[in-house]
Structure formats: C-alpha cells, structure tokens
C-alpha cells in the first residue's frame, strides 16, 4: 500500500520516492498545498477503492495517517 501511495504522491510533488515514509508530513515534508492534497485524494480514493470524507481526511497529516484511514475504510 505504501508503494502505491508513493507512486501517487510522486505524480504531485518532486520528491525521491525512497525518501517518503509513513512519517512524512504532506505539507511540511513533501511540499503539498491544500489544493494538491485534495486532488491527490481524489486519485487515491479510486486507486484504493475507498470512500473518503473530505472533512475527516483533512485530519490526516502524514502518509501513515492516510494509509491508516484507508485501511479503516476497507474493513
């Protein structure tokens, strides 16, 4: 799941995929802005086949938070 997430993230920001970890923060570490995050989530929603709540998902600050959220949605 992390590898797929890395693939999606690197379509949006210029970062080395190997530097992305579950602790990476979207805004501070990866250089996302709020608009890019929302667009990226739209892609991730389809890729992971989950339904996201835009308000809830904005609480996810790190890649790990997002993967946990998706994991919870899939259960």
């Amino acid at each position, binding site marked *: 799941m992390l590898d797929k997430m890395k693939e999606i993230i690197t*379509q*949006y*920001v*210029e970062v080395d995929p190997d530097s992305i970890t579950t602790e990476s923060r979207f805004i501070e570490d990866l250089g996302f*802005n*709020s*608009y*890019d995050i*929302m*667009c*990226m*989530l*739209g*892609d991730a*929603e*389809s890729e992971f*086949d989950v*339904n*996201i709540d*835009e*308000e809830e998902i*904005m609480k996810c600050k790190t890649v790990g938070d997002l993967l946990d959220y998706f994991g919870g949605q899939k259960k």
Partner: protein
Amino acid sequence: MLKNIGGINYECYPLTSAQLLNLTNIKEGTTDEVENIGAGQYLKMDINIAALREALNRAVERCESMRLRLWKDPDTGETWQYVVPYQNEYFEYYDFSAWKEESINDTLNKWTSQPFDTFGGKLSRIVIITLPDGYNGFYYNVHHVCMDSSSVIAFTKDVIEIYCSLFYGMPYPKPMSSYLESVKKDMQYEGSKKQQRDEEYWQKQLELPEPMYTDYTGPGRLMQLRKDNKNKKQKWGLLASSDGKGNTITYELNVESTMKIMEFAKQYDLPVSAIILHAIRTVLAKFNNDSTDVTITDLVSRRSTLDNKKCGGVRMHAFPLRTIMPMNTTVLESMRLIKKTQDELFVHADYDPLKVFGGLAEKFGGAPGSTYASVDFTYQPGTLAAIGESLKGIAFKSRWYSSGKQPKPMYITAMHRPSDGGLNFFFGYQTECASPEEIEFLYYFTGRVLFRSIENPDKTIKEIIDMT
C-alpha cells in the same frame, strides 16, 4: 483517431470538457474574439532579439498546445483537435519605445481582438516588442481553446528560462510535459471509477433544494424576472450579454494589506481563496436582503500533478460553489465551510461542468443560460513572481490585454503581482451586465468585508454586514 486533413494524416482527439466549457461561452451569443488571450511579458533590460526569437521557437517546439489546431469533420460536424509538427518561425519585432503607453495598449488590445481562423488555422501569434523605459519582451495572442492563464504562466516561464540559458548560461529548463498525454488521460476518465464517484457526488448536489440567485447589484434583476415570468417563487437568474462586449478593471491591493490576508490564512490554516470567497459571498448576502443561500461559480485550474502543471492547454473547470449559512455563522465558521465545500469540489473537479449546470437547469426548469451565480471567481496562486526572483532584481512586468469581449458577466480573478507580491483583483465584466460604478461598489464592499472579517474572526456574518 487518424484523420486525413488537407492530405496529411493526423492523430485527432475529441475536445475535452474544459475546452467545451470555453467554446460554450462563444455559443452563448458572443463572437470568436471573446476566446482570445492577449498577454505581454516584459523585462527591464536589453534583449538580444535573435536569442529571444530562438527561445520562443524552442518554447513553441516544447509546448504542444501552442501548435494545436481544430478541425471540423464536414460529414459529422464534430470538432477534433490535433497538434501540427513544429516548424521554425520568424517572430516579427515591433519597436514601441517612442509610443505612449495608452497607444501601445490600444494597439495590443486591437491585436487581441482579431479572431483566429478557428478551424484549420494557426491559433496563436507571437511578436517581440520594445516598450518605453527600457522594457523588452514579447506579446502573444492565443485562442482560449489552446491555453488558459496557468498555461500562459508556464509558457512564459519556459521562454524566459530558455532565454536566460541561451544568453546567460543559466541551467536549461526541464522539458514541458505532453499536452496530448493529458488529453488522453481525460479520455480515460470517461467511464472510469473516478467518474462514477464524481457523478455520485454531483448527483447528490442536484438532489438538494433549489439554490437562490444572488445578483451583485441586489435583488432587482431577480424581481424583474419573477415579474416577467409571472412566477413569484422563481429562484434562478438570467444574466447574459447579447454581444459579449466587455472590459476589465484592475484594483491593486497594497502589499501591507495583502500580507494581512496571507498571515491570517497561515494563522487559521485557511486557503487564501476561501478568505476572498467569504468576502464576496458576504457582500452578495448583504446586497440580497441578507440571503443565507449564496452560490458563486468557482473556477478550478486542475493543475495539481507535476505533468498537469507543465502541459499547457486548457484544463480549467467551473462549478457552482454553494453555501447555506444562517446570519449567526461566525467569520471563521463561514471560511471553514467555504473551504470544506471547495475541498469537495476539488476532489470531484474532473467531472464535466456542463453536465452540472445542465442538470441544475433541467431539474429546476431554468431557461437556457439560467444561473444561480452572478459572480465567477478564481484565485491564481501560481504567478510570474518566481521568474522575477530568478532574474535577481531585474524589473519585470506582465500585462493582460483585452479582446473587447468578456466570456462571463462578472469574472473576478485574484492574482499576485510579479513585482511585489501584492494582490491584484481583475474584474472582467460584460458592459451590458455591469457598469464601472457597480464594480467599484462591489470591490469597495468586498474589501471592507474582507478586512472587517480578518480583524473580527469571531463576529457573525450579520455583525460584519452591519459594520460595513
């Protein structure tokens, strides 16, 4: 799909939903020149014309959408797009250094108003220009089916970086990404899981009760429509110009005031667009008897991926951003609700906007061209300021020229100036739909509401309205 055009086979693609949205503006009673973008980019420095000509050629070669053509199938009437191979071009040079600024603007506005031969012809024109006071650069006019404002910025940046590389040995810029690949991705969206999700979202929006039209001049237009249609409960508005004639007015917000907005955005983790939208929304509520239901058309650049940022073309979509707020909603609650609504819209912004607008008209029986939003808004965070920084203090000016037509009755763009980062508010308006006085009034109250709100984030909308 391979098509034989003028004896040559070209790989052709259907128009995207963003292009169709643009072309709809032409169909709605206006003429071709409404769809022209005219822009001038000038540096206060001596320019080597041969090097600039070379930089422009290389930039056109790298940017597929600058070589875009349209073709109408004579058998089906369908419009297709294709990209012609690059051919070296000689860009003319004009020396306006002895001209007055007003005459230069008149000339460039006139050039911008020249319609292109839409089907089959070249859809752009570039010339090199010298202005008074030592400014040199280039003007270009391009059909809006090829480029939008984000593309203009990306193309300009590319030209200047190529020039600096050729002439000053600075690093050569990374290649642009492929416009046609972005078109192919848009085609893959059709029938995809993402489209299904987006459709579900927009269908849910269409199930909500009918929105209320709020005009930037107050309720008079809606009242008149109700009278004309003998329907006291009518909620949709009709705001359109018969000839598309229009103009622009630009207001410059000083740097200090702009910084207040930026600092507020940072302090409360809010996007600048939500803060400005809150101000426009509150003014529309104020002008329409404290309406709690306000819709603004929000334009979305759809330039989030690295490829989309550098592919040129037209990707802008527009959607109704509707918020319902009681008058006791606080400023912060208002901005946060706008942000939440805008976030939802961003997630589902690949959906065809014409289906959303068409769906609203169909559901609530609106006349063709009916709307619930009197104002279109876009905030352009990507600016040419970065170019200015890379030029290490060389003065840079960017000008947008008017074709004499406007695509929308009232289209507000907030954009940072490349010179000092202050915000410019461009009001593009159709002269049949607004007067300069009405725009002055709208800007005045938007500014008042904006700064009263920032100073009093815990006050209610009603309190802000009463203060302004």
